[in-house]
């Protein structure tokens, strides 16, 4: 297939239309945001404009989803995997901006730039989902990360926020250096930064066992491991998630992870399928460590944001199982999982925002005691979200099918990952310990007499909560349609091409 020529305007719009719309709109909004002095009304106006821009970009992406079903060579991928990843990313963006408008109003923060920074981070994520060249991967990672470093410390009055931002920045930059060094060594081994060229040269030149390539892939895996918070590269996540404002924490936990996983899967499936045997044990090891540590340490948490941070680490482990399976189903399973996880995470953080007080004190699990008595709808919504994160059948809606598809991808792969599937199920049982304890506290414990009732739920927060809970329940009833859509445009590399090449490669 001929690559798209990005110098021709029509083809450029096919390849990058939504991205260009988002970046151009975000730049205009940045000027508007800086035009007036910070005030609650101004941040609200810029917030609503940003919300409209993200929704418009989302509609553009959805129209591309049906129009364009081809994969291309060249630096930018135009396939349904990318458009579906963009839908998940823009859903997270809309939720994050909506929650930030309410959270800024609650904390009396007037910085309108926070919404624009979310838009820039999303532009970086969309670039990541589209990247078919290591240079574009690097640019996407950095555009996303630089915006999110600033977002983590956007509340200038909070010492905890500044501390979290510094930790995130130093470890993020450290991880980027590893990622880059890995890219440099892969470039050195293969002579190209294009994912397709790398794959074909690994096959032709039989590089699968070359030390330069193996070290390069390992360093890239370390870099991505930091970005998705996989054990043992996870130590920054709980501190940063605890310190950042709640909407930004949800954005980091769900959307940043979605974009990083989309890029990780594409790079590994398109560039390194011939070296599958070399990297599969490393990815499987990361998955096992991440599932076990994330869920075990999650049990000990009393601060609900830290608990959700460890839950997010554990979910990264479940997603790594899909990557380790390396089958054609992995892409659609991963996207469905990320969609369900995005919905559940933003819903849960919407509840946390309602329960947060004016001061900087973190929300504890015990603060939810007896919520059923004072705010029954809030408690019911939170209960469904917790069951969805757990992957409970029927009441957990989409969360159950998300885990189901990952298990299916692991077990139906050409080399079935039975051990990983068993560990996934066992650690899910362990995770019931903390998800169900939240449900128990809400419904069974009496509310302490001195605990004030939570304030009224602001409109946008209520909308986010309602949309996420309803979408989880609806997706739990009709999951197949969406997975079919994602499968229609699955990644090019399939294990069918993996097997013959690795069979020819010389054994060390």
């Amino acid at each position, binding site marked *: 297939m001929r690559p798209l020529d990005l110098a021709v305007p029509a083809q450029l719009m096919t390849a990058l239309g939504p991205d260009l719309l988002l970046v151009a709109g975000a730049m205009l909004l940045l000027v508007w945001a800086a035009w007036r002095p910070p005030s609650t009304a101004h941040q609200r106006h810029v917030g609503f404009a940003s919300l409209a821009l993200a929704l418009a970009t989302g509609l553009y992406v959805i129209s591309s989803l049906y129009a364009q079903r081809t994969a291309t060579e060249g630096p930018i991928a135009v396939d349904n995997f990318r458009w579906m990843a963009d839908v998940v990313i823009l859903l997270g963006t809309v939720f994050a901006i909506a929650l930030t408008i309410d959270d800024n109003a609650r904390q009396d923060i007037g910085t309108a730039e926070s919404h624009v920074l979310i838009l820039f981070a999303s532009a970086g994520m969309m670039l990541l989902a589209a990247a078919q060249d290591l240079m574009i991967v690097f640019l996407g990672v950095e555009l996303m990360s630089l915006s999110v*470093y600033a977002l983590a410390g956007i509340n200038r009055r909070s*010492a905890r926020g500044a501390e979290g931002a510094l930790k995130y920045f130093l470890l993020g930059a450290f991880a980027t250096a590893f990622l880059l060094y890995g890219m440099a060594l892969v470039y050195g081994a293969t002579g190209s930064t294009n994912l397709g060229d790398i794959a074909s040269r690994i096959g032709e030149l039989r590089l699968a066992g070359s030390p330069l390539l193996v070290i390069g892939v390992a360093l890239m895996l370390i870099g991505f491991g930091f970005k998705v918070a996989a054990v043992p590269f996870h130590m920054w996540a709980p501190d940063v998630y605890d310190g950042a404002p709640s909407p930004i924490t949800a954005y980091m936990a769900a959307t940043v992870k979605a974009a990083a996983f989309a890029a990780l899967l594409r790079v590994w499936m398109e560039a390194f399928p011939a070296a599958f045997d070399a990297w599969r044990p490393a990815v499987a090891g990361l998955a096992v460590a991440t599932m076990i540590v994330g869920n075990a340490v999650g049990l000990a948490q009393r601060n609900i944001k830290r608990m959700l941070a460890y839950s997010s680490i554990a979910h990264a482990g479940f997603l790594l199982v899909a990557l380790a399976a390396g089958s054609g189903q992995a892409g659609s399973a991963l996207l469905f999982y990320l969609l369900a996880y995005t919905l559940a995470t933003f819903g849960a953080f919407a509840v946390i925002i309602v329960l947060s007080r004016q001061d900087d004190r973190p929300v504890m699990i015990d603060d939810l005691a007896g919520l059923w008595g004072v705010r029954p709808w809030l408690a019911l919504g939170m209960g469904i979200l917790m069951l969805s994160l757990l992957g409970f059948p029927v009441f957990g809606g989409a969360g159950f099918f998300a885990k189901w598809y990952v298990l299916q991808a692991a077990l139906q792969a050409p080399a079935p990952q039975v051990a990983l599937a068993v560990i996934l199920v066992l650690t899910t049982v362990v995770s019931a310990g903390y998800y169900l304890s939240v449900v128990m506290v809400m419904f069974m414990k009496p509310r302490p007499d001195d605990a004030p009732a939570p304030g009224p739920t602001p409109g946008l927060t209520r909308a986010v909560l309602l949309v996420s809970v309803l979408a989880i329940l609806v997706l739990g009833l009709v999951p197949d349609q969406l997975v079919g859509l994602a499968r229609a445009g699955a990644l090019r590399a399939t294990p069918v091409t993996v097997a013959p090449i690795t069979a020819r490669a010389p054994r060390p």
Partner: protein
Amino acid sequence: MLAESLFFSAVLFSIGVIGVLTRRNAIIVFMCVELMLNAVNLTFVAFARVYGAGGQVFVFLVMTVAAAEAAVGLAIIIALFRHRHTVDLQNINLLKG
């Protein structure tokens, strides 16, 4: 030439890693990260002598992004200094648990 350049950049990268892991001053840790990025640049330039200009283009991207990263990073360090009056990572311990 290629082997020497690669060896030198690997040494430079390792010095950066050791610096990040052992130093306690946030600004020096950040300088060590920059050292790692420059080691990567050297690797790209060395390989570009073999494979052509692709590696050099990558170096320009890395330098531009590193400059933007420095701007964001130093702003975050200043924001923290205003709260705690120190940039020593050992004294930065509000978030624990």
